[in-house]
């Protein structure tokens, strides 16, 4: 048989029918649902008199709108409250399991899924959210969809898709001390650009990826979408199996061996052909910091904001010019000279336990700079619980960080956590678009230890000096 990629294997397992027009009717094993992109889908089902075909294959959680302070008072913003209440009502009506706001399992949808064992290797997983790519870290094919497709999957348990092309990003060598999965993916995006993976599913491979924890792999896959790819994925290995075993929705004794046996085949065969390949030397990586308004506008902590004269063409020059103006940075300025007003540690990119551990290691015994407000927002209630059991919350609060309740928070500022116009933020989230963290706010994407380092120094600083 022709050698197959990981993408081929999962895809082939889920083909219900090839349609004449070249699209495929693809079976979906899991659908994750949150409050922002689902109300119109449920409304559509209701209007057409349709039900959910397999309600047990869907799991819901409110995350984007939930407050991270004063939860016991409920949601004060009436518009946000209505959206969350609408999710509660829709899940009850359509028979879908929901981890509602008071539930310890509530959290960012992409943190919750893997944590509960709802995300399993070999699955097809969709969610009305572009960062669904995260789940590919477990050897699944996961991609974001629009609300019409959410409705389609609820009604039919399938989706109409054209198969993406397979791309492989190989990260060689070994990461230096203080370097993280976040630096890897930012460097990849910087190299291939925000459209570098368009039309592709990116498989991340190589020694650096092999040595990452599943949490780290999730950070990498999470931002595949920022490289233009709808899916990121990593082959199944013993690290994956150890992560999955024992989680609430993972297969138990009777089926574990059979499942694990099938999952062990989930890797690209030797000789499998990729449409594109990109190689990154992980050993040479230096902590990454974005300087502009697109994730590809990235440099390292030893670097400088580019000069317009260095742009490769007029289009890039124009984009840089706009970005420099919006970000309020001068061309050629050293990244270390940029002072921050706020720091955000959290999100589906970097809101997991190892992210909080890495940030706490820097915070320990230090103080947040006087002019900085720093937020730590665990990715889920369980992450929060675990962190508190390890005493991380006390390290953070002693250092002057605010310890919050789980949710998307300042990643996209739909709740009360946001940047004011002109404020500069070191953020562990995934998007530095104009206005993303608040109108006029200026976002620099970094890893959790780099964010913690910026909080204590009051400006960007090479975290390796604080280790």
């Amino acid at each position, binding site marked *: 048989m022709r050698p197959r990629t990981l993408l081929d294997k999962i895809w082939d*397992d889920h083909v*219900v*029918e090839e*349609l004449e*027009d*070249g699209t495929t*009717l693809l*079976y979906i094993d899991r659908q994750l649902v949150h409050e*922002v*992109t689902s*109300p*119109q889908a449920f*409304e559509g089902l209701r209007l*057409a008199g*349709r039900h959910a075909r*397999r*309600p*047990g294959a869907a799991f819901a959680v409110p995350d984007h*709108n939930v407050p991270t302070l004063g939860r016991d008072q409920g949601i004060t913003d009436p*518009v946000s409250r*209505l*959206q969350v209440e609408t999710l509660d009502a829709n899940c009850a009506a359509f028979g879908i399991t929901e981890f509602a706001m008071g539930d310890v399992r509530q959290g960012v949808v992409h943190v919750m899924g893997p944590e509960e064992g709802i995300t*399993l290797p070999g699955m097809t997983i969709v969610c*009305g*959210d*572009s960062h669904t790519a995260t789940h590919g870290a477990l050897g699944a094919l996961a991609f974001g*969809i*629009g609300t*019409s*497709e959410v*409705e*389609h999957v609820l*009604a*039919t*348990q*399938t989706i*109409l898709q054209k198969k993406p092309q397979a791309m492989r990003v190989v990260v060689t060598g070994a990461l230096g001390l203080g370097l993280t999965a976040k630096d890897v993916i930012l460097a990849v995006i910087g190299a291939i650009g*925000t*459209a570098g993976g*368009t039309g592709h599913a990116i498989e991340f491979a190589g020694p650096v990826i092999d040595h990452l924890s599943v949490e780290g792999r999730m950070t990498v896959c999470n931002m595949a979408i920022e490289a*233009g790819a*709808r899916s990121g994925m990593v082959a199944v290995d013993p690290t994956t199996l150890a992560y999955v075993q024992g989680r609430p*929705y993972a*297969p138990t004794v009777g*089926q574990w061996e*059979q*499942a694990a046996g*099938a999952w062990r085949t989930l890797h690209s065969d030797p000789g499998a052909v990729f449409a594109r390949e990109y190689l990154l030397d992980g050993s040479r990586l230096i902590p990454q910091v974005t300087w502009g308004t*697109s994730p590809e506008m990235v440099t390292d902590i030893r670097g400088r904001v580019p000069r317009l004269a260095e742009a490769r063409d007029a*289009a890039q020059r*124009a*984009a840089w010019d*706009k970005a420099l103006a919006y970000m309020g940075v001068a061309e050629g300025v050293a990244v270390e000279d940029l002072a921050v007003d706020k720091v955000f540690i959290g999100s589906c990119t970097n809101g997991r336990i190892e992210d909080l551990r890495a940030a706490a290691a820097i915070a320990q015994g230090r103080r947040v700079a006087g002019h900085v407000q720093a937020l730590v927002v665990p990715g889920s209630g369980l992450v929060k619980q675990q962190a508190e059991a390890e005493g991380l919350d006390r390290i953070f609060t002693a250092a002057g960080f605010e310890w919050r309740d789980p949710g998307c928070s300042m990643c996209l500022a*739909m709740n009360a956590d946001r940047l004011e116009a002109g404020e500069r933020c070191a953020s562990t989230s995934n*998007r530095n*678009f*104009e*206005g*993303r963290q608040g*109108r006029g706010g200026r976002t620099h994407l970094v890893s959790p230890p780099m964010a913690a380092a910026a909080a204590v120094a009051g400006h960007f600083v090479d975290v390796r000096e604080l280790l």
Partner: protein
Amino acid sequence: MQPFTPFTAVVAPVDRANVDTDAIIPKQFLKTIQRTGLGIYLFDEWRYADPGEPGKPAAARLPRPDFILNRAPYRRAGILLARANFGCGSSREHAPWALLDFGIRCIIAPSYADIFFNNCFKNGILPVVVDEATIDDLFCRCDPQAATAPMAATVDLAAQRIELADGTVVHFAVDPFRKQCLLAGQDDIALTLTHAGAIAAYEQRRRVEAPWLFADLAG
């Protein structure tokens, strides 16, 4: 969904690359539980000088006079001329909903982000792909400063052609299935449900091969 019949409308050029869905519709408007009514918030941060909030009355807003969609004939634009990688970023379907609610039924650009491209078809918007050279030419012809401004165009999906008021004709390719769905105003779900037999057969086979995937159906 309305069938996509030929129409003539003003072309509004938005001359920047990588326009993301946060720019098309900022997040504070994602709290709605409806599909309609988002047109007034389209490109909110570019269109208004004051911060937009859901429910803020239009009369209280401060439109930026230099933004294209705030200027007289472009307020009723039906076609958007755009640059590469249009619609990147968040998967929010609120972006095509906002465009459609404003009155945009066709976008012309050299490339789109995948999810946005898909979402357009599902909502009766035609995203046309044309090469960079043609796009550059169209930007010249539709330039609001040009003598011929404002430029109108007629979009004919059945014939796969766009004709500008100055006689310029652009032919475009489109996936035949998507074309048919747009022309008929067809609902994808109804179409897929005609394959219900195949879906059930797949599930039956898969439950034997991979029973752990069907724990919710056990018993």
